[in-house]
């Protein structure tokens, strides 16, 4: 985990969550909601937004109160803060979007246990200023949402032949039911991780090549 030196801007902190340190594809955190609620794009985005709200809110609070929280009980206080935000998100969804809440069911309260959120408090928000903490949270939650959406979209397209409930292929498409069942989640996640690592390897090899070329040129 890079600590912000003078060179890293708050903007960099946000960007790293989207790609380089993506919570799902690189850190492999938050797998439970990742696999459980990504059977459609809408569910994935709803879960992404709820997580976004909780993570950004808790990072803001934890970072701004970091000097008030005694170190010995910090984890308990973080959990209390996170649980409060989750409860707020839970009731708000239930009141405003009952249909979405019905689909996501038990997985909204389970955001409390999303290791990505507690991880960001302990590893980042509690050690940085509010500005950096919030930017980091926005990046991480954004990266999480992108990952959820990628998984949800692939599974909905292949598993139901639809995206956002709109038919894509017409009558003759036979949906791959397995894709919206749990095995489909594991398969899709595995393939996306493979893709991410492959791209990372390629980039590393390319950079090494460039460096070698520069050395021989000099």
């Amino acid at each position, binding site marked *: 985990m890079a600590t912000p030196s003078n060179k890293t801007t708050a903007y960099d902190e946000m960007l790293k969550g989207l790609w380089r340190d993506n919570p799902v594809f690189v850190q492999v955190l938050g797998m439970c909601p990742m696999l459980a609620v990504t059977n459609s794009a809408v569910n994935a985005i709803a879960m992404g937004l709820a997580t976004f709200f909780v993570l950004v809110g808790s990072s803001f609070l934890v970072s701004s109160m970091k000097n008030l929280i005694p170190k010995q009980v910090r984890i308990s206080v973080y959990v209390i803060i996170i*649980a409060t935000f989750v409860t707020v998100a839970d009731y708000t969804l239930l009141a405003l979007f009952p249909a979405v809440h019905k689909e996501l069911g038990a997985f909204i309260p389970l955001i409390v246990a999303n290791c990505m959120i507690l991880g960001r408090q302990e590893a980042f928000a509690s050690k940085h200023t509010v500005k950096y903490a919030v930017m980091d949270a926005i990046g991480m939650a954004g990266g999480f949402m992108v990952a959820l959406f990628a998984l949800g979209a692939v599974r909905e397209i292949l598993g139901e032949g639809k995206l956002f409930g709109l038919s894509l292929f017409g009558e003759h498409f036979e949906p791959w039911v397995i894709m919206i069942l749990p095995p489909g989640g594991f398969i899709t996640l595995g393939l996306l991780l493979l893709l991410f690592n492959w791209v990372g390897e390629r980039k590393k090899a390319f950079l090494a090549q460039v460096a070698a070329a520069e050395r021989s040129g000099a």
Partner: protein
Amino acid sequence: MSNDLLQQTSAEPGSTRLVVSLAISGFLSGLIIIGIYVATLPTITENKARELREAVFKVLPGVTRMQKLQFDGERIVIKQDSKDDENTVYAGYDAEARFVGYAIASEGPGFQDTIRLLYGYQPAERKVVGMEILESRETPGLGDKIYKDAAFVANFDDLAVDPLIVSVKKGPKSKPNEIDAITGATISSKAVVRIINEGNQRWLERLPLNPPPLAEEGNG
């Protein structure tokens, strides 16, 4: 970093401070949770009531008004309190306040979890006239066809309840008390049928041909 950590742990705050900070954060969190609960409760209750009303209107064609009835152990009376329990049944009336039929809630185990459903019943013809799944966690893509597959749901639009509803796996249904099971979701289909049969067993004897007339403010 490690120096900082050492200093922090050596300057150990008294346990009073730990207790106080935990208590304060717990108290504030409690206040916020109570706040959001109170703020959203009216909308949530309203949503639930509207959902139920819409379901009743859906399973009983032509119904525009409803009221809650209750079986008090001997007969059906108009329900006074608003809390629903297993002895609650809903009566649907048309625009001229004429009785159309009952909406009966029933539940039972499905393939994965409890299925809760509501179905419309016309006592004069002894027929089920509509079915709506209220709650289920059946397998997406297979079992969830019990409410996503319009053809399956249409099975319950005109269905005799005597002697028992039967789900038919092969070939089209031929008798008025039969429904076509969903291919690939036989267990879920059978569960729906069983839940309705159980509801019938429990309710049909109790329900009079004509329920208490629509009370004026009984829009429940």
